[in-house]
């Protein structure tokens, strides 16, 4: 266990010293995850609302599909995206393979069903009296939708945090689509995997600490917003 303790101390040193490769991985992780979260929220929230609020044909089947996609293995997403953006794939001309955009694309596929499914569940469980109250106060369809979303904002925030946690900690997509290229597409998780393989525990632990700090920061922000 001694190597863990010394690894921890070295991790602190690496972070304080501003080690370039460490901070490059942090930056790549934040860029890819932020873009994927933004895109999945923009599309996932309306889809989740529609799935939870409206009744339509095949709704149950769509819901089952979305719920199944919650357990999507990251390597499967990586494989799918790789096939699409490799030079022989239908999106090959955009040259997205081994780029942060490619990683963001795969992570969006990972986060989208999480945002959609959790939003749908939240909307389905909205108090029956809310809609009746809004109608009786004269709200139109648009007001009803916007007010319902606002009323469940903390639940939606929790959905976003859950999705962010999944995106932040995935390895499969970043490794397969990003290629783990140092100073370019190496993310925190792929770097941890690599450094551990090389026996560089200190670097791995340093990156692990950063990953935990980001997750902690996001949750602190959420609890701050809830208090407001």
């Amino acid at each position: 266990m001694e190597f863990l303790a010394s690894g921890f101390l070295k991790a602190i040193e690496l972070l304080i010293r501003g080690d370039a490769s460490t901070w490059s991985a942090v930056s790549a992780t934040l860029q890819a995850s932020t873009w994927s979260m933004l895109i999945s929220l923009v599309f996932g929230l309306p889809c989740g609302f529609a799935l939870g609020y409206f009744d339509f044909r095949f709704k149950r089947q769509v819901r089952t599909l979305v719920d199944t996609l919650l357990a999507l293995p990251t390597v499967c997403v990586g494989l799918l995206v790789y096939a699409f953006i490799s030079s022989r794939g239908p999106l090959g001309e955009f040259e997205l393979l081994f780029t942060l955009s490619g990683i963001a694309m795969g992570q969006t596929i990972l986060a989208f069903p999480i945002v959609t499914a959790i939003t749908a569940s939240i909307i389905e469980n909205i108090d029956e009296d809310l809609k009746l109250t809004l109608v009786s106060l004269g709200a139109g369809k648009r007001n009803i939708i916007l007010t319902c979303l606002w009323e469940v904002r903390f639940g939606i925030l929790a959905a976003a945090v859950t999705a962010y946690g999944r995106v932040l900690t995935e390895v499969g997509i970043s490794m397969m689509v990003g290629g783990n290229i140092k100073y370019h597409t190496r993310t925190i998780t792929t770097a941890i995997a690599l450094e551990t393989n090389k026996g560089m525990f200190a670097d791995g632990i340093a990156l692990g600490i950063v990953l935990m700090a980001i997750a902690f920061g996001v949750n602190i922000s959420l609890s701050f917003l809830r208090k407001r």
Partner: protein
Amino acid sequence: MGKLLYELNRVCHLYGDKKVLDIDTLDIPAGSILGLSGPNGSGKSTLLKLLAFAMAPSQGKIIFNNRPEAPMSPRVRSRVTLLTQKPYLLKRSVFDNVIYGLKIRKDTKNLKQRVAQALAAVGLDFSEFYGRSWHELSGGEAQRVAMAARLILRPKALLLDEPVASVDTESASLIRRASLAARDSWGCTLIIVSHDLIWLNQCSDTRISMAKGRIFSTLEESILPPPYEKRQGGTIKDLGNNEYISLSPQTGSAAVISQKQIKISLSKEEKDGYDNQVTAQVIQMILEQKTGNILTTLSMDNFLINLSLTREQVSTQGLRPGKKVILMFRSQDIAWR
């Protein structure tokens, strides 16, 4: 009868295959107060939701202000509002809850003054309450804030579904006072569902009862509610204690008898073909301020009958709460709806 605000003609509503509302005709004059009572599941709340245009009837049309209207119509959205027993307060401050309806209508003039007036109408002090969050209110205060959010809209019709059923006495009194003030102040039509018969009798211009999705005139007819049984070659309503009511052959879902056909006696009598003579106990007597009659509630084991009796009838029979009497009526006078 003055100008009609609502006209319902052959309105039916179904949940799945189950018919929960079946109204042949119902007219509600503008500026009137309609009191609505009936057992749970009789269709009262469904009727209010239809009148609030929160949903459309399965069959039939609801005419509001001389025009057939549908949910979300801009002509009704600003004029009809419903307050339920447990209203939903939005997760924001009291001030923001009260102005919600005005904001979506983009009517934002003198908001502070209008909110202060609306809160005062329900006995809440503006400076003390306007900044409070929704979760900092007691049940009675929340109900009063919800009432203020509706009064500020100055609706043409205010529909109240058991508005005082789960609040304290003071809040109930303030909500009752505010609803009557709305009628007196701007001619708001009030449609009130309540089990509080004293309040309904005090304030209503018209009283109706509901059973099995149908409406009955409370002071003219009494419902002999289901269940019914087939026995001895006919239909009966079992009252327990070896007593039952013989009914005419069943042709509808609810048995009804005109109150004029019910005779009160102190003992069973063998006369005039009164084949139904059942024991009932007086449980409540309320003065009807509009007619001077005494609304007498009698309990027959598992259901209640309300009879509007003259003071002479009450004093001749020596009626008082707790007294047992015999209700006499003929099975042939019982109709089915």
